[in-house]
């Protein structure tokens, strides 16, 4: 049951350029979306989130765009830095007291110097 999908397992970009990571979801009940970054042997680190009432949220070099009609969100990193190289997970939740997060499979980003 893949309610959250990240169809690109990997992405390679040059330092200074834009990185665009994509995520699709199927459950229309999802109303909160998050991006996490994960290094090997560490837990996921929260990066940025967006509520379904918005279509864009920006935090420094990171911007998340939400297209509800397409059930699609994307994370833009600009400019990309070598330290951004990690696995990026998209996650979604439905408004509820439980707060369960449903994760995508992850996209490995490599930023080349």
């Amino acid at each position, binding site marked *: 049951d893949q309610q959250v999908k990240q169809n690109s397992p990997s992405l390679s970009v040059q330092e200074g350029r834009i990185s665009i990571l994509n995520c699709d979801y199927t459950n229309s009940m999802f109303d909160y979306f998050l991006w996490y970054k994960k290094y090997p042997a560490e837990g996921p680190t929260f990066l940025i989130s967006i509520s379904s009432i918005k279509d864009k949220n920006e935090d420094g070099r990171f911007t998340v765009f939400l297209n509800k009609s397409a059930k699609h969100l994307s994370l833009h990193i600009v400019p990309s830095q070598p330290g951004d190289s990690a696995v990026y997970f998209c996650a979604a939740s439905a408004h*509820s007291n439980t707060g369960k*997060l449903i994760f995508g499979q992850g996209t490995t980003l490599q930023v080349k110097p």
Partner: protein
Amino acid sequence: EPEVTQTPSHQVTQMGQEVILRCVPISNHLYFYWYRQILGQKVEFLVSFYNNEISEKSEIFDDQFSVERPDGSNFTLKIRSTKLEDSAMYFCASSEPSGGDNEQFFGPGTRLTVL
């Protein structure tokens, strides 16, 4: 900066043995979670815990699993009789929800190896 901590970082056990994975959530957080990630697969939700009781659990979280908050700081996951397929990274997370937002903070994980 406050963080979620987990112990041990790596646990090796024999099939059929009981294991307890420990977590110390961020102190003012109210919701606690366990997730796991089998090697090469996605992070999967196991259970959420609020107000000293389970609020939701996944199909993975069967009778072999239990959670407990034995005191004001620890949150534990017990697997009563481990199976080979329980080998995974187990992540604890906590959150302080407000207005429906659910920014969860994850610990570094415990790698469980069942032999």
